[in-house]
C-alpha cells in the first residue's frame, strides 16, 4: 500500500534520548505446533450440523416410504389403487426434493410408454434408447447446470427403468398397463436415490411382502441407516480431519477420493434402508460393498461392487446383447459408453468411466494371462475355493498372496487418481468442467495413465 516508506529499514528517526529503566527479564515462548481442530470443534462445527441437517432433510422421505409400505401391505386396496398411490407418493417426493425435473420425468415416461406400443418391426433395439438419450441430451443443454447436476441421478434412474422395461417387452412381448408402468417409474422408494430395480421386483412387492416377514427387518433398517450416517460423517468431517490440508499430494488425492467414495456409500446405504423400509425383500438391498472397494481385489471387483444393481442392469441390457455384434472389447467399450451417456454428457464422468473401462480391460487381460502362465489364482476374478482350477492359490503359496496384494495396491492407487476430482470445489454444484479434470490430473503428472500404459506394454509383450 504505502510504497513511500521501505518497510524493512527504520532509520528515519535516529535521535532518541537515552534513558535508564529497569531491564526486565525477557520471556521465552515455545512455539506450539500448528494446531489442529479439536474433537470438540469437529463435533461442533462439522458432525453435528451435518447429521442434524441430513436427518431433518431426509425425514419426509422416510415417512413417505413408511406410507408406501403400508399401501403395499394392505389387503384392502386393489392393485390399481396401489399403483396410483405409488405414483402420487412418488410425485410428492419428487416435488419436495427435486421439483425442477418433475415435468421432464413426466414427459420422459409418457414418450417411452408410447414407444412401447410401436410394433417390433418399426422399432429396433436402438429405438428403446432414443427417448432417454434424447431427454438427457436435451436437459444437458437446456437446463441450468446447477439444476441439471442436482437432478441428474433421478433422471438416470428413470431412464434405466424405461430402457429395462422396453428391452423386456422386446423379448417377451408382454405390455404392462399404464398404472403399473407409471407406478414403477415414480415408485417413491427408488425415484430419488435409486437404485434401479426391475419391473418384476416392483410388481411382486404386492405378493412377496406378505410372505416375507422377517422379525428383524427393523433392525436391518436401523443398521443400514446408522452405517450410512457413519459414511456421511467420514465423507464430510473425518477424512478432512485425519488428513491435513498440507499433506503430501498423493495423500490429498486419496483424501478427496475417499471422501467421494464415502459419499457414494452414504447415498447407497440410505437407498438400501429405504428399500427395506418400503417393503422390498432383503435380497435386493445390497447396493454397494464398501469393504470390497476400500480393499479391492481388482478394479473389476470395484466396478462390480460399486453399484450392484447398476452393474446387473449394464450386464443384462448392454453387455450381453452387444457382445454378439461387437466382440469383447467392443462390448466393454459400449457398456462404459452407455454408462457415461446415462450419467449425462459430462466430460469428467466420461473421462473417469472410459478410463476405468480401459483399466479394467487391460487389468483383466493381463491377470488372466498371468494366471494361465503361472497356473495361479491371480486373475481379476477371485477363485471360488471349491472350484479353483489353478495349482497355486493364496493358501498354499505366499507369492500368490503377495501378487494379489500388489494388484490391490495398484487398484487403490488408480482409485485415488480417478476419484480425486470429485472434490469440494466450487464446481461440485454445477458439474466439473473439462479444465478442472485435466488440471487435477496434470498435477499428479497423469501418473495413473502412464502406469496403465506400462501395464499394457507388459501385456502386449507377453502375449
Amino acid at each position, binding site marked *: 500500500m504505502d510504497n513511500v516508506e521501505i518497510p524493512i529499514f527504520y532509520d528515519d528517526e535516529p535521535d532518541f534520548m537515552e534513558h535508564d529503566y529497569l531491564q526486565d527479564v525477557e520471556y521465552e515462548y515455545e512455539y506450539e505446533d500448528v494446531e489442529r481442530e479439536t474433537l470438540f470443534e469437529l463435533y*461442533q462445527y462439522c458432525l453435528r450440523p451435518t447429521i442434524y441437517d441430513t436427518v431433518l*432433510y431426509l425425514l419426509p422421505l422416510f415417512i413417505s416410504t413408511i406410507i408406501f409400505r403400508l399401501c403395499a401391505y394392505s389387503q384392502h386396496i386393489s392393485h390399481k389403487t396401489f399403483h396410483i398411490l405409488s405414483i402420487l407418493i412418488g410425485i410428492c417426493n419428487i416435488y419436495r426434493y427435486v421439483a425442477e425435473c418433475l415435468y421432464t420425468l413426466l414427459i420422459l415416461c409418457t414418450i417411452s410408454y408410447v414407444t412401447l406400443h410401436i410394433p417390433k418391426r418399426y422399432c429396433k433395439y436402438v429405438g428403446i434408447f432414443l427417448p432417454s438419450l434424447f431427454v438427457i441430451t436435451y436437459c444437458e443443454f437446456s437446463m441450468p447446470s446447477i439444476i441439471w447436476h*442436482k437432478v441428474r441421478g433421478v433422471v438416470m434412474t428413470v431412464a434405466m427403468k424405461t430402457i429395462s422395461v422396453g428391452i423386456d417387452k422386446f423379448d417377451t412381448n408382454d405390455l404392462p398397463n399404464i398404472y403399473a408402468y407409471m407406478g414403477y417409474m415414480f415408485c417413491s422408494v427408488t425415484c430419488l436415490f435409486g437404485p434401479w430395480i426391475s419391473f418384476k421386483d416392483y410388481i411382486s412387492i404386492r405378493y412377496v411382502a406378505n410372505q416375507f416377514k422377517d422379525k428383524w427387518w427393523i433392525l436391518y433398517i436401523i443398521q443400514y441407516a446408522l452405517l450410512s450416517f457413519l459414511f456421511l460423517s467420514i465423507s*464430510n468431517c473425518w477424512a478432512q480431519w485425519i488428513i491435513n490440508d498440507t499433506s503430501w499430494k498423493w495423500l490429498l488425492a486419496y483424501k478427496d477420493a475417499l471422501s467421494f467414495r464415502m*459419499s457414494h456409500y452414504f*447415498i447407497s446405504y440410505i437407498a438400501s434402508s429405504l428399500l427395506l423400509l418400503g417393503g422390498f425383500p432383503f435380497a435386493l438391498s445390497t447396493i454397494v460393498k464398501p469393504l470390497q472397494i476400500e480393499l479391492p481385489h481388482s478394479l473389476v471387483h470395484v466396478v462390480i461392487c460399486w453399484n450392484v444393481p447398476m452393474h446387473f442392469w449394464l450386464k443384462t441390457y448392454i453387455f450381453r446383447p452387444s457382445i454378439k455384434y461387437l466382440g469383447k472389447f467392443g462390448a466393454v467399450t459400449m457398456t462404459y459408453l452407455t454408462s457415461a451417456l446415462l450419467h449425462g454428457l459430462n466430460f469428467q464422468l466420461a473421462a473417469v468411466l472410459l478410463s476405468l473401462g480401459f483399466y479394467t480391460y487391460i487389468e483383466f487381460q493381463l491377470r488372466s494371462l498371468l494366471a494361465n502362465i503361472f497356473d495361479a489364482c491371480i486373475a481379476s476374478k477371485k477363485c471360488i475355493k471349491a472350484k479353483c482350477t489353478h495349482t497355486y492359490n493364496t493358501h498354499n503359496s505366499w507369492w500368490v498372496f503377495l501378487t494379489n496384494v500388489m494388484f490391490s495396491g495398484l487398484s487403490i492407487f488408480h482409485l485415488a487418481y480417478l476419484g480425486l476430482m470429485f472434490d469440494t470445489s466450487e464446481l461440485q454444484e454445477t458439474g466439473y468442467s473439462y479444465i478442472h479434470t485435466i488440471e487435477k490430473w496434470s498435477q499428479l503428472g497423469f501418473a495413473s495413465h502412464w502406469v496403465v500404459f506400462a501395464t499394457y506394454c507388459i501385456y502386449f509383450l507377453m502375449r
Partner: protein
Amino acid sequence: MRLWVVIGALAVAINASIAEITRNKNRGRGSMWWGIAKAGEPNNFLPMSPASLHMDPTVYATLRRKQRRLARENPGVLMAVARGANQAIVECQHQFRNRRWNCSTKNFLRGKNLFGRIVDRGCRETAFIYAITSASVTHSIARACSEGSIQSCSCDYTHQSRPPSTTRDWEWGGCSDNIGYGFKFSREFVDTGERGRNLREKMNLHNNEAGRAHVSSEMRQECKCHGMSGSCTVKTCWMRLPNFRVVGDNLKDRFDGASRVMVSNSDRVRGNGNAIVSNSASNSVHGHREGLGRRHRYNFQLKPYNPEHKPPGPKDLVYLEPSPPFCEKNPKLGILGTHGRQCNDTSIGVDGCDLMCCGRGYKTQEVTVVERCACTFHWCCEVKCQLCRIKKTVHTCL
C-alpha cells in the same frame, strides 16, 4: 467577533497541545489488559492457579472497570481472554522471529505495558500488536464458546433461520453464533479504552477492527454434494474456525503493506487558524465533550498520508508515524536492540546477518546441542527417541 475567533483558535491550540502531551497516557488505556497473559504465571508476585484467575488482584489491576464488569458477568470469559492474549504473543513472536523487532515482551509489572513502550508510538509494529491481540481474543472466545466453557453464549437453535438460498435445499443447522459472540465480545472488551476521540485512538480502533475482520472472514462454510455418481441431490454444509496461524499470516501480509494515515480534513482546517471547529466532529477534543455515540465509534474513514494512495480498507492495518530504528538499545521505547540476536549468514533477507546486525558484524560459534533424534514409533502409541549431540554453527550479532 474577531476576538472570539482568536480566543477560539487559542483554545483549540491549547487543547491540541494537551492532547499531544497526554498522548502517551491515551494509548495505553485500553491496552493494559494484555498483561493478563502473564497473570497466573508462577514468576509473578502472586502465584495463582488459572482457576482462581478471577480473584487475582494482579489481574484486576490490568483491567478497566468495564472489563471487570464484563468478566464478572460472563463467567469463564477471563480464561479465554488470557488464552487469547498468550496466543497473540506466541503468534506475534512467530511472525516476527526473523525481524529486528521480534515482538519481545516484558515481565509484567503493574502499570507497565506488556509489549514495552513501543506501543506509545503509532508505528507499524503497534498496529500489528493491536490487530493480533484483538483477533486472538475473538478467536479464543469463539473457540471457548464452542467448547461450552462460557455460559452466556449458547447456540440458540430457534434463531438460525437464514435467507433462503437459491437452491433452497439447504439450511444451516449448526451453531454459527459463536463467531458472532466472539466478535461482539471483543469489541466490548478490547475496545474499551478507545473512544475514537483522537487520531491515535482511531488508529487503535481501526486496527482492532481489522484483526477481528480477519478472523470472521476466515471463518468459512464448506459444503459437500452427495448423490448418485457425484450428482448433487443432497448438499450438506459445515463451518470451520480458521487456524490462528492463517490469521497471523494474513495480518503479517497486511503489516507489510500497511497504510500510513494522517489527520483528517477537519483537523487541517483547524491548523490553518480557521477557528470554526464546531463541526469537526471527530478528531478534536471538543468532539469528546459532545459525547460520541456508540454508533459513531466505528464510523470513520482515515485519510492516507500520501494522497495518491487509496484510503485504507477494513482489513488493512494503519499507522501514524514511521517506526523507530530497532538496531540499538533504546530504553525510552523499550527496544532491546539486535545485540546478541541469532542470524542466518546465508540469507539476504532481514534475518540475514548483514541486516539483522545493522552492519556491526557478527561472531560465529560452534555449539554442541543435544537433540532428540532417530525417533521410532512404537505401537501403540508412543514415540521413542535417542539423544544425539550435534555440532551447530551459531551466528550472533555483536
